[in-house]
């Protein structure tokens, strides 16, 4: 019956959408997180949940605490002697800020890619296998498989499959950055932290990285710091706006970029300060 099909269809779609919404589980619970460098409080009482298999963008002017926040998640700030944390970051029922956390294991689970591509001064192949060998994986067949899989996931395989034993420095900037992502993926992380991963790249390489990030969302939860508002609005599902260490607004990206609740968010995304 035509009529009934027409009335039922949109409802089914709606229900489907709702089911998808429900499936978004929380991967990280940030609870009253503060991060200090000596007396300076860089992150102030941040509290919000980060969705699994979603892209969360952190935006805000320089010095607002977003990169400190990002580095706080996989305890990179531990490398800074005067840095200390308060509050909790809950990941799989564990507080990542616990003193007894094995940070090496943590950084395997929660990998990071930095602003400037930083490949090791080794071949493309060895860049990916370096950490694997450290963890005792030495069988060539096994390593070959991981290299191919990681490079494929980072959308780099076709471009470098004939150059695996050339120096990583012979790659272009965009390729180097994708190699760094591949290197992170080789450790089979759950969460990817990206600190302005494409700000040092040309527009084409930038577009490739963005496409890659969107693909990776299927398998990973991604948190990305970006100064590029268009990038945040294009690729992220949720956006957190940081200002002077505080999370001013955290919401669906669509909401943040079309009708933000907070005047300061609006001023920042419209380019009135920052």
């Amino acid at each position, binding site marked *: 019956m035509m009529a009934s099909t027409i009335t039922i269809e949109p409802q089914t779609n709606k229900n489907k959408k709702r089911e998808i919404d429900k499936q978004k589980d929380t991967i990280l619970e940030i609870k009253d997180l503060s991060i200090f460098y000596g007396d300076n409080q860089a992150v102030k009482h941040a509290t919000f949940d980060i969705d699994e298999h979603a892209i969360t963008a952190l935006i805000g002017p320089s010095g607002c605490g977003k990169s400190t926040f990002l580095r706080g998640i996989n305890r990179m700030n531990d490398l800074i002697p005067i840095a200390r944390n308060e509050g909790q970051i809950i990941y799989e029922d564990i507080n990542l800020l616990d003193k007894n956390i094995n940070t090496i294991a943590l950084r395997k689970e929660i990998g990071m890619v930095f602003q400037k591509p930083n490949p090791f001064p080794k071949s493309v192949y060895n860049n990916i296998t370096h950490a694997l060998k450290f963890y005792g994986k030495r069988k060539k067949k096994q390593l070959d498989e991981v290299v191919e899989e990681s490079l494929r996931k980072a959308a780099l395989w076709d471009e470098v499959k004939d150059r695996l034993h050339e120096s990583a420095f012979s790659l272009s900037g965009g390729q180097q950055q994708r190699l760094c992502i591949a290197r992170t993926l080789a450790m089979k992380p759950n969460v990817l932290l990206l600190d302005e991963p494409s700000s040092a790249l040309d527009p084409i390489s930038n577009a490739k990285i963005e496409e890659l990030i969107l693909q990776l969302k299927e398998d990973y939860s991604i948190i990305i710091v970006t100064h590029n508002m268009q990038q945040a609005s294009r690729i992220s599902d949720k956006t957190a706006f940081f200002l002077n260490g505080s999370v001013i607004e955290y919401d669906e990206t669509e909401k943040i970029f*079309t009708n933000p609740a907070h005047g300061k968010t609006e001023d920042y995304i419209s380019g009135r*300060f920052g």
Partner: protein
Amino acid sequence: MVAREQFQVELSKLRGDIISLAHETEKLLEKSLEALYNQDIDMANDIISYDTKLDQKELKINEDAILLIARQQPVATDLRRLIIALRISSDLERMGDNAKNIAKSTIHLGEEHGLTIHPALTDMKNIALKMVDLSIKAFEYEDITLARKLSELDDLVDSMYGEIIREMLEETATNPQKIQHIMQMAFSARYIERFADHTTNIGESILYLVKGETLNLNE
């Protein structure tokens, strides 16, 4: 510090252009009724040719707005400001068309139609002009309270239009030989009613700008 000063300057220039286009449409409606009542065919022809100038101004506003979107990549309220600039200029252009259509009716009626133009058309026109004023103030000050008032005035124009049409239907019964002329008068009433409708669209655009959601003022 106010950043993006150039953007703000260009936005306010665009706003000024829209306000001046609105004032010109007001004048055009005023004149079209004057021509209708005075059976002034020359004036009606002037109105028709003046309307093409308004069309060009609308195109210019559209081009400027599109260029600003491309160059400044605005988001949130700034983006909505440009989106409503496109919408409002299109409404104003259509309002100009309605004035032009009244001028065309004046020409169809000719100089010897021997009918009294219904006085209520003047009342309708006066309310429609008040609505333009309101909508443009609402636009200038981004004031949703003013925008909401348009809804009540539009109801008034609608009911006046209904009344005029009823009277004219009776007139056709008593004066069937005048049916062509009465039709033109009824069309003119319809054009004023449409003109007023477009001002409620402008009000809706202001609500969209301020609230970020679509609301209907013309129900």
